[in-house]
């Protein structure tokens, strides 16, 4: 464990503890923040610097089968962006889908110390955990795709809700996941079994006799009952389609007053007629979120330039392939999920891309409660996480934003209100949308703040006028009390840990799951659950209602 350390003279931004730019000492011992440390503790003089908790990415795609397929698919993405090793760190490659080592080190170079992989098939959990083991510095967890799970849908259709809850808990334990992920609920079977079709309405009954809304409601209730620290993480139906904001509002209404997290909400905030160019409905979406404290969301900001679409929403990826006309991956996982991958490029001159960029910014700038509107680019779908510093500058610097607006499609700007928004984020608000907010939404009590008992995950930036430059190059990054980056250089390696939950369940549920398995899976039931040897350092986050 790490030695004692004292950070002095720094301007501290710790919104969870109502500290907004105060000069304050931070003491560290044994990987945690403590009240005081002995006199001889190592001192970091943070004079002229900003001290924040380490960043927390609530929604990104960084490890597992689909990510690795996207890596293999794009040598051109890596070639121009190499990541040399040092005597203490491994080498790798970057681009929008970096290698595992580059992913961990690059998050650290932005001051991020936790990241959550947002979509893993249960059968791919073992693969994801192996990649996590090779993803250094950061703590990490993943959301497991259960919405399209055929066995769970069967229980739902038969209204066997007790067993449904048990089975959800069993699957979480079998995969070491952090919460449940739903993607385009009800869309998998039409895609795989009905010649690449899709669902288009939240109340559309599929041949299987379920509607997307029934699936969404069942998971929200189940997770609420079991008290997971983070609610179901929902990728709504109709992503990217004009007029989809209705679906998004309906999805949020389905939650009632129970918690739900809407992923990359920007992609779900479009008005207009299906098949025609969309218009912004950011105001309507933000109004609902602001007025419903049970809802959290991440924005899924689009950043111009190269991205990689990777999603369990296979029909969506196929639509995008129709636009790019380039290479495309489809990957079906038995009984569990679909997946699509398309290399993509957001371009300023294209109406749709500019509108997406503008809607994301509108959502940030309109939201009254930044705690529940979290910064993400849905990495690498809206762009790489390496764009975060630029995104922060867009939010903090109105003049910069207006300069950028001159370079984009002007008719798209006519159909949104970005020109009228003068708000500039403060450092405290940035600390909320990148640290305190995501940690709270995830139920990570020891992250996103600098109070006594918190994990000693700390970033120290030189205070600069150019916020992009500032957030691009922290002077110090401390992870679990270890100084990983000192004076802008990597000085040690660190592995980080897995964050997962372990809800209780009745073992008898295995007798219900097993026969289905033997009929319809291609691996043996007893070889399916991930055993503990795939956990490197890990932490179980408590479940159950407080």
């Amino acid at each position: 464990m790490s030695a004692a350390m004292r950070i002095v003279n720094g301007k501290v931004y710790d919104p969870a503890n109502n500290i907004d730019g105060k000069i304050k000492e931070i003491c560290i011992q044994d990987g945690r923040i403590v009240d005081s440390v002995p006199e001889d503790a190592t001192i970091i003089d943070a004079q002229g610097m900003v001290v924040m908790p380490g960043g927390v990415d609530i929604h990104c795609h960084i490890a597992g089968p689909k990510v690795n397929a996207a890596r293999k698919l794009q040598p051109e993405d890596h070639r121009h962006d190499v990541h040399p090793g040092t005597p203490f760190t491994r080498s790798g490659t970057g681009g929008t889908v970096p290698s595992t080592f580059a992913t961990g080190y690059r998050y650290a170079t932005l001051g991020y110390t936790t990241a959550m992989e947002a979509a893993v098939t249960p059968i791919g959990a073992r693969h994801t955990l192996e990649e996590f083991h090779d993803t250094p510095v950061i703590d990490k967890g993943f959301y497991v795709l259960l919405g399209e799970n055929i066995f769970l849908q069967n229980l739902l259709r038969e209204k066997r809700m007790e067993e449904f809850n048990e089975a959800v808990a069993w699957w979480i334990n079998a995969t070491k996941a952090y919460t449940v992920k739903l993607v385009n609920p009800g869309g998998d079977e039409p895609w795989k079994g009905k010649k690449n079709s899709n669902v288009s309405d939240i109340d559309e009954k599929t041949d299987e006799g379920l509607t997307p809304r029934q699936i969404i409601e069942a998971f929200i209730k189940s997770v609420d009952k079991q008290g997971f620290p983070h609610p179901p993480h929902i990728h709504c139906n109709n992503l990217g389609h004009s007029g989809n904001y209705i679906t998004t509002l309906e999805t949020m209404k389905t939650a009632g007053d129970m918690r739900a997290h809407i992923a990359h909400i920007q992609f779900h905030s479009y008005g207009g007629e299906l098949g025609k160019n969309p218009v912004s409905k950011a105001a309507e979406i933000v109004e609902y979120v602001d007025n419903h404290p049970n809802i959290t969301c991440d924005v899924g900001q689009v950043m111009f330039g190269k991205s990689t679409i990777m999603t369990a929403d296979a029909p969506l990826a196929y639509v995008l392939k129709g636009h790019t006309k380039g290479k495309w991956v489809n990957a079906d996982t038995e009984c569990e999920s679909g997946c699509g991958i398309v290399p993509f490029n957001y371009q300023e001159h294209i109406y749709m891309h500019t509108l997406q960029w503008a809607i994301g910014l509108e959502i940030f700038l309109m939201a009254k409660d930044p705690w529940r509107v979290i910064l993400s680019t849905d990495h690498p779908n809206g762009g790489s996480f390496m764009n975060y510093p630029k995104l922060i500058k867009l939010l903090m610097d109105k003049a910069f934003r207006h300069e950028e607006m001159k370079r984009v499609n002007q008719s798209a700007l006519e159909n949104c209100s970005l020109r009228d928004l003068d708000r500039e984020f403060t450092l405290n608000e940035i600390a909320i949308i990148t640290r305190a907010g995501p940690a709270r939404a995830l139920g990570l009590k020891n992250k996103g703040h600098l109070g006594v008992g918190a994990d000693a995950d700390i970033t120290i930036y030189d205070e600069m006028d150019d916020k992009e430059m500032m957030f691009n190059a922290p002077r110090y990054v401390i992870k679990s009390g270890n100084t990983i980056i000192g004076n802008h250089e990597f000085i040690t390696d660190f592995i980080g840990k897995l964050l997962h939950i372990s809800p209780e369940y009745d073992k008898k549920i295995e007798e219900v799951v097993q026969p289905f398995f033997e009929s319809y899976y291609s691996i043996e039931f007893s070889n399916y659950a991930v055993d503990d040897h795939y956990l490197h350092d890990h932490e179980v986050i408590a479940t159950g209602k407080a």
Partner: protein
Amino acid sequence: MAENTKIIENATCTFCGCVCDDMILTVDLDEKKIIKSKNACVLGRAWFAEHTIDEDAPAAMIDGKEVSVEEAIEEAAQTLTKAKFPITYGLSDTTCEAQRQAVAITDRIKGNIDTTTSVCHGPSGLAFQGVGESTSTLGEVKNRADLVIYWGGNPAESHPRHFGRYAVTPKGMFTPRGKKDRTVVLVDVRKTKSSPVADILIRPKPGKDFEVLWALRALVKGKKLSDDIEERTGVPLEVLQDLSDRMKNCRFGVLFFGMGLTMTRGRHFNSGALLALATDLNEFTHFVAKPVRGHGNVTGADNVVSWQTGYPFGVNFSRGYPRFNPGEFTTVDTLANGHADAAMIIASDPASNFPKKAIQHLKSIPVVVLDTKMTETSKDAHVAFRTSTYGINTSGTVYRMDDVPITLRPAFESPFPDDESILKGINKRVNELMLAKHYASGASGEVKVAAPI
């Protein structure tokens, strides 16, 4: 009947890429061998029966003389760090845990890493980078496929349970009658032991796969073909039209393809044409394709090398970061061109199946070998380790040909160390040697490594 036996249920066979995990092994603990392997195919039975322990064999040798494992690790590390162009090769017959160590070593020594993929489905990997792939896990094929096409492969002999466990006869969710619910097509230049499974047999002229695939792409898109197609490819137009219609009208189609495409004229263009055909068909129905991969964990090797470097095979670290260039950094080339000046070969035997010129160069440089048995490659090695067998003596992770990872259940202990522990030892020593070089070059500063990966 042996007295001291135990049964291992749901063990996994790692001989071929099917990675069947339903083995029931009976182990004779006194004799240290597997005496029965229920559910195994002919290849699996041989795999389990023949991996016995030769107690007399040395665990490590330098230039043919028995040494301790520690001495051999030291010599291996010295050999690899001294070389200017060290290459790592093999990796398909070992665990992902060992593969991760092998990439780490190669990264640290700024060497070159490549796997048996480059001489197997490497061309399909290149085709994948060009066109992508519509694919699925094997369970989806079992549950859904009503049209199953095998192209350029002979699974009856190379992957004997592929038909029965995954693709032809099993009864699935939407294929309740098994084979009766499927049409099976086999495309191959010769008649093989796989032929009887097919409802339709198509035999193109040798080396004409690309032309046949391209003709099918045209037909699927509704284009007319010239009359001489049969003359050029050996396949009559009516047969092609019929196959095109079946592909467009099925509910869930799958194209499995073998090395009959990747190793013959056209190589990656053949794989690319097939993947493009499967992609095109998604305009009409749901269609997937999948290379029928070979050795037990070759798919794991692709995955590990990809997540650590960004590239699936043929990766060079000489500039301090990964570079990918098939034809330059692939092993047949690094050997045949005479670039490699030391080699670490893990669980593979290039000396018995590489081109003659490559073998000649391999025999002229110092070679470190890890293998479970003596091979053409290990018998002339500078440093040779005898290791235990994955899935029989040691656990670890293996990826099936459809990227599904499975954890191995070992049957009995071996006196020999496993690949991972040998490679960990080499990795640690190499790390020390490279850090010493770093400090010797004048670098300063107190540096601690909290958790070397």
